[in-house]
C-alpha cells in the first residue's frame, strides 16, 4: 500500500513536469511553431498523463485526457489543421487537464464539471467535425485504461496466424539500434499488436551480416506483421508510440500492395575495427551474454531466427514511458536532493565563512607578518571559502521559469474575464535566483499581471480607436542587474491616467488638494494603501488591496518597486529583489555601544542633524526637517531600552528610513561604521520574536549583532511615546 502510494506520488510529480512541458509546447504552437515535432511532444505529454492515470484508476482524468489525446492524434496525423482556433481550445484544455490532475491529487475538491464538459464537447467537435469524418473507432475504456507498454514480462501466448484474413494491416517494422538502447523490445511491441487481433509475424534477417562483421548494437532485424483486425491506423500506431522515432515503420492496409522497398537505414553494416585477427571468442561471449535476454523465441515466427539472430542486443528491462521525451535535446543530468540537506550545507558554509573571517582577524591582531606562511595560507583559505560559498548558493538558485510558467494560464483567464485580447511575452525565464525568493515571487507577479491586463490594457474596441492592434501585449521579463534580480512587467496599454489618479488621491484624502506633485510622484500614488483606480471594483483586481499589497510583499523580501508610465503607450513596473534571503545588505551602526544593523533597502539617506532643523511637536516628540517635510525622530537606543534618557540629536547621526507603508522616520544613532553584507540568523529558532529586531547576525569578531526592524521600531516609538504628530505628505 505504501509502495503504491509512493508510486502515485511519483506519478503526480511527473504529471507536474508533463503539464509544464505541455504548456511550454502549446505556447510554441501558439507562436506559430506548428511543426510535427512540437505537436508530437504535446501528444506524448497528454498520452503519458493518461497512461499513468489509467494505471491508478483516475477515471475522470483518463476520460478527459483521452478526448484531448484523440484530438492531438488528429492534428499530428495532419487530418486536422493546427489553426489558432484549435490551439486556443488546446490551451484551455491544458488548463482543465491541470485541474483534473489537481483534483485527482485531492488538492482541489473537484473540477468545474461544466467547464470540463464544455471543453470535451469542443474538442470532440474539432476531432469529428469538418468535412472528412475520420474513421475514429471509439476505443472502450478498458483499452485506453492501460499503457500500451505492459510491465509484465511473461510471453506465454504464442501468436497463432489466422487462416482467413479479414481486413487488416501489414506492418513493416525495422527497429534501429537506438530503439533497443532505450530499453524497448520488439517482442513486447509484437505482443501488443497481438492484442489488437490475430497476427502473422515474419522475421526478415536478410540484413544480418556474418558473425565476424556483426556490430551487435545495431538493429539488423526487420519484421513484417500482418494484423487481421478491423482497427484504424491510429490504434496500430499507438502501439509504436514510444518507438516511432527510433524505427522505420510502414503501415499498409491489407489488400493494398505492400511498398516495394523497405526504408533501409542509411549507414551500411558498421565496419569492425581494422585487423583480421579479431578476438572471436570475446565477441561470442558478448553475443551469448546478450542472447539470454532476447525474448524472440516464444514468438511463433514462421521463419525462426537462426542462432545468430538472437544477437540483437535487447536490454530486458521494462520499457520506460519516459523514453517518450528522449529524442529531444538531452537534458542535463540532475539529482533530487532533500531541501533540508542543502540548507544544512548552506548553514555550515555560512559558519565556515564567519570562522574564517574571525581567524584572519585574530592572526592579523597577533602581529604576524603578512608575508608569513600562515597569513598566506589564510588568504588561500579565504579564496576557497568564497568559492565554496558561491557554489553552495548556486545549488539553491533556481530559474524563475517555474513562476513564469504559471502565468500564461492566469493571463488567459483574466483576458477571458475582462474580454480583452492579450498576448503574454516572457523573457529571461532562465534567470536564476534563490529558491526562497522564487517561491515568493509568484504572488506579486500574479497581482501585477492582473493589474496590467485589468487596468493597463484597453478593450479591443478602444485599442482600435487609438490606432493600436486589438491584441494587447503584456511583457514579463527577468534579468540580473548589479547583484539583484530585476523583474519587469510592462504593457502597451493606456498608461496611467495621472489626472484621474490625482483626483482619486485627493478624493480619498490621501493627498492635499493643492499638492504639487511630479509625474513620478503621481504614479507612485497608486502604491498608497486604500488606492484603487478601477471604476468598478472587479473580481480580478481592485478591492482597494491592489498595489500597496504588492509593494508590501516586495518590501518584505528586501526589494523595491518602481513604475514608469507614458500616457497612451503603456506602463512598466520594475521590481528589484535581492538574489537570496540568506544575506542582507546592511548599514552597520552603533547606539549606546551596541552594534546594530539597519537594512539598506529601507534607508533613504543619512544626515547629521543640525539644531536648526530640529523641532518639537507638543511636549517631547522631536521631529527633524528633511527636504521640506518633517519626519519623526526615533531615538533607537532609548526605544530599545539600551539607554534611559534621550540623547542629544546633534551629537548623533540621523538615518532617514522608509517603512513598508511608505512612512518616513529618522533613526537617531550614535555613529555609522559602514556598509556590509550580513548573514541573517533568525532569533525565533531558539528564542522568539523580539520587538524592534528583525533578526540577528554574526559579525567578523564573532559577536552577535541585531538587525533592526524599521517598521516595528517606528510603531513602538509611536505607541510608547504619546504623539499627536501628523505625517506631512
Amino acid at each position, binding site marked *: 500500500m505504501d509502495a503504491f502510494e509512493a508510486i502515485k506520488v511519483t506519478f503526480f510529480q511527473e504529471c507536474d513536469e508533463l503539464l509544464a512541458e505541455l504548456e511550454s509546447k502549446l505556447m510554441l504552437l501558439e507562436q506559430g511553431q506548428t511543426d510535427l515535432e512540437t505537436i508530437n511532444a504535446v501528444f506524448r505529454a497528454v498520452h503519458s498523463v493518461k497512461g499513468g492515470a489509467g494505471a491508478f484508476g483516475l477515471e475522470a482524468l483518463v476520460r478527459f485526457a483521452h478526448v484531448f489525446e484523440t484530438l492531438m492524434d488528429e492534428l499530428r496525423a495532419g487530418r486536422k489543421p493546427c489553426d489558432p482556433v484549435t490551439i486556443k481550445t488546446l490551451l484551455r484544455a491544458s488548463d482543465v487537464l491541470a485541474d483534473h490532475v489537481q483534483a485527482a491529487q485531492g488538492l482541489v475538491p473537484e473540477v468545474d464539471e461544466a467547464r470540463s464538459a464544455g471543453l470535451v464537447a469542443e474538442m470532440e467537435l474539432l476531432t469529428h467535425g469538418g468535412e472528412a469524418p475520420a474513421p475514429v473507432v471509439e476505443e472502450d475504456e478498458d483499452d485506453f485504461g492501460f499503457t500500451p507498454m505492459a510491465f509484465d514480462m511473461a510471453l506465454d501466448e504464442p501468436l497463432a496466424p489466422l487462416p482467413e484474413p479479414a481486413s487488416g494491416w501489414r506492418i513493416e517494422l525495422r527497429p534501429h539500434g537506438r530503439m533497443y538502447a532505450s530499453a524497448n523490445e520488439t517482442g513486447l511491441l509484437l505482443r501488443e499488436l497481438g492484442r489488437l487481433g490475430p497476427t502473422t509475424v515474419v522475421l526478415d534477417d536478410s540484413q544480418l551480416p556474418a558473425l565476424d562483421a556483426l556490430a551487435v548494437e545495431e538493429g539488423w532485424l526487420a519484421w513484417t506483421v500482418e494484423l487481421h483486425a478491423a482497427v484504424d491506423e491510429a490504434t496500430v500506431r499507438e502501439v509504436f508510440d514510444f518507438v516511432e522515432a527510433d524505427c522505420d515503420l510502414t503501415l499498409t492496409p491489407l489488400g493494398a500492395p505492400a511498398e516495394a522497398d523497405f526504408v533501409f537505414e542509411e549507414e551500411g553494416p558498421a565496419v569492425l575495427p581494422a585487423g583480421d585477427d579479431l578476438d572471436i571468442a570475446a565477441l561470442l561471449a558478448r553475443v551469448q551474454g546478450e542472447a539470454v535476454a532476447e525474448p524472440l523465441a516464444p514468438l511463433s515466427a514462421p521463419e525462426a531466427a537462426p542462432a545468430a539472430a538472437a544477437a540483437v542486443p535487447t536490454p530486458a528491462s521494462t520499457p520506460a514511458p519516459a523514453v517518450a521525451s528522449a529524442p529531444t535535446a538531452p537534458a542535463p543530468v540532475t539529482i533530487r536532493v532533500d531541501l533540508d540537506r542543502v540548507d544544512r550545507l548552506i548553514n555550515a558554509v555560512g559558519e565556515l565563512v564567519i570562522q574564517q573571517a574571525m581567524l584572519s582577524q585574530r592572526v592579523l591582531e597577533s602581529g604576524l607578518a603578512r608575508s608569513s606562511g600562515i597569513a598566506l595560507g589564510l588568504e588561500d583559505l579565504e579564496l576557497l571559502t568564497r568559492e565554496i560559498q558561491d557554489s553552495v548558493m548556486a545549488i539553491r538558485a533556481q530559474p524563475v521559469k517555474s513562476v513564469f510558467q504559471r502565468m500564461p494560464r492566469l493571463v488567459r483567464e483574466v483576458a477571458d474575464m475582462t474580454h480583452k485580447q492579450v498576448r503574454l511575452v516572457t523573457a529571461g525565464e532562465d534567470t536564476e535566483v534563490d529558491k526562497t525568493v522564487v517561491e515568493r515571487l509568484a504572488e506579486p507577479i500574479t497581482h501585477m499581471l492582473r493589474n496590467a491586463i485589468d487596468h493597463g490594457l484597453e478593450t479591443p474596441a478602444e485599442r482600435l480607436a487609438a490606432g493600436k492592434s486589438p491584441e494587447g501585449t503584456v511583457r514579463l521579463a527577468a534579468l540580473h542587474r548589479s547583484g539583484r534580480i530585476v523583474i519587469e512587467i510592462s504593457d502597451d496599454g493606456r498608461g496611467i491616467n495621472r489626472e484621474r489618479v490625482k483626483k482619486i488621491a485627493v478624493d480619498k484624502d490621501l493627498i492635499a488638494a493643492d499638492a504639487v506633485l511630479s509625474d513620478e510622484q503621481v504614479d507612485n500614488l497608486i502604491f498608497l494603501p486604500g488606492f484603487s483606480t478601477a471604476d468598478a471594483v472587479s473580481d480580478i483586481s481592485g478591492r482597494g488591496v491592489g498595489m500597496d499589497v504588492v509593494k508590501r510583499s516586495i518590501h518584505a523580501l528586501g526589494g523595491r518597486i518602481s513604475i514608469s508610465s507614458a500616457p497612451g503607450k503603456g506602463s512598466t513596473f520594475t521590481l528589484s529583489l535581492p538574489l537570496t534571503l540568506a544575506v542582507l545588505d546592511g548599514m552597520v551602526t552603533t547606539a549606546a555601544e551596541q552594534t546594530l544593523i539597519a537594512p539598506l533597502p529601507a534607508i533613504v539617506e543619512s544626515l547629521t542633524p543640525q539644531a536648526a532643523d530640529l523641532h518639537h511637536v507638543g511636549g517631547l516628540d522631536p521631529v527633524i526637517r528633511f527636504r521640506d517635510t518633517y519626519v519623526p525622530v526615533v531615538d533607537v537606543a532609548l526605544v530599545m531600552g539600551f539607554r534611559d534618557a534621550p540623547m542629544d540629536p546633534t551629537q548623533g547621526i540621523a538615518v532617514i528610513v522608509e517603512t513598508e507603508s511608505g512612512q518616513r522616520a529618522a533613526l537617531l544613532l550614535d555613529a555609522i561604521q559602514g556598509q556590509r553584507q550580513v548573514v541573517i540568523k533568525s532569533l*525565533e529558532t531558539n528564542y522568539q520574536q523580539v520587538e524592534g529586531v528583525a533578526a540577528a547576525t554574526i559579525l567578523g569578531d564573532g559577536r552577535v549583532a541585531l538587525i533592526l526592524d524599521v517598521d516595528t521600531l517606528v510603531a513602538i516609538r509611536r505607541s510608547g511615546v504619546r504623539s499627536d504628530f501628523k505625517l506631512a505628505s
Partner: protein
Amino acid sequence: MTEANDTANRELIAFRIGGQEFCVDIMSVREIRGWTPATPLPRSPGYMKGVINLRGTVLPIIDLGARFGLETSEPTARHVIMVANIGGRTVGLLVDAVSDILQMTEASVQPTPDVASEHVKSFVKGIFSIDGRMISLIELDHVLPEREAQAA
C-alpha cells in the same frame, strides 16, 4: 512531560546558583562552556541576558538564578553556560558553577515542600538529598517564556 520519567536510574548534572544546588537531566544538556559577554536583547525580561554566538547559532542566554527569582550578580568569566535543549530550542543557561554528576532513582525524589512559592514550584519538580546536600530537580520546560503568547 519528561521522557525519562519511568526509568529507574537517571543521570543528573548538578550546578550551583547562589548558595543553592540544583540539577537537571544530563540528557538535556549538550555542552558546558565559560561565560562570554552577550548581546543584549531590547524589551526582554530581566532574566534574558541576551544572545551569544555558539559556532554560528544565535544562542539566547537565560540567567537561571534570575528566572528562579534569586539574587544574582553580574556574570564573570568564572560563570558557566550550560547549553541545553528545551522543547526543540537550544538555549544557554547561566549558572554559577557545575558541581557534580549524580545517579538517582526516581523513588528518592521527594515532592517540593509546601514552603516554596508557586513561582518556584513551576520549575522545581522535586527535591532529594545526597550526602546531606539538598538538591532541587529542575524541570526545564517552563524556563523559556511561552513563545505562543508572543507570536500570536
